[in-house]
């Protein structure tokens, strides 16, 4: 009985705080994406030819984000039925966008114009009970071209 109460309160806590944190994070991501829109980040591997007056510099950004208890529970249930697990989709989406924003921020601080050859890497850091993914790390890195 006590176990059940603990489970339900953890789920409620997770739901409440998790939803709030996610909403706030998305608002902040959208705001910063607008601000940093003038620095394009491209996946192209070939830098612009015929414009040799650029300095290049490696920039990177990483973030570790954890999913909340409620979402992990729901994902566990989905694991039985199969299908899309939206709670992890938003987790990864947030992590990637955040990592790219940090790359852009670093590039902007250097006075860069564009970031080339962006690579994204995802690693699951912490595995909870029953091998459920607890948190993911996303690393984004690329080459910033700084006009000199």
């Amino acid at each position, binding site marked *: 009985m006590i176990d059940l109460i603990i489970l339900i309160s*953890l789920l409620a*806590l*997770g739901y409440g*705080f*998790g939803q709030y*944190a*996610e909403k706030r*994070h998305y608002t902040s991501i959208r705001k910063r994406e607008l601000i940093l829109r003038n620095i394009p980040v491209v996946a192209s*591997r*070939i*830098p*612009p*030819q015929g*414009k*040799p*007056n*650029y*300095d*290049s*510099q*490696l920039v*990177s950004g*990483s*973030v*570790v*984000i*954890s*999913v*909340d*208890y409620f*979402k*992990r529970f729901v994902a566990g249930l989905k694991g039985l039925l199969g299908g899309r697990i939206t709670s992890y989709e938003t987790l990864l989406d947030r992590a990637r966008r*955040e990592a790219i924003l940090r790359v852009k921020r670093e590039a902007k601080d250097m006075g860069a114009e564009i970031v*080339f*050859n962006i*690579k994204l*890497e995802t*690693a*699951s*850091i*912490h595995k*909870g009970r029953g091998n459920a993914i*607890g*948190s993911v*790390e996303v*690393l984004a*890195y*690329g*080459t910033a*071209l700084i006009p000199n």
Partner: protein
Amino acid sequence: MIVSNLEVIPGKRIQTHFGLVQGSSVRAKHVGRDIMAGLKNIFGGELRGYTELLQESRQEAYDRMLDQAKAVGANAVLNVRFSTSSVAAGAAELFAYGTAVILE
């Protein structure tokens, strides 16, 4: 030292290739951070302690790679890649590698 994950640097030509240079660092998480992470696993959100920990260890791997490049006399490292792998429970390896070259 120019470090880039492009294969060519705009406006510069590669004079000498030295081949692969690499650096790695294996880190374990510490207990205080782990407790915080446990809490965050209930509430969700960014684990700043972990973000910093991984950044530090990645920086160390990166520095080791640069040391190796300096030791062979390179002035640039091109095509840099990062990779992460979990070696044991609670420990992760951060790995950085690239091609050491002399640019004109």
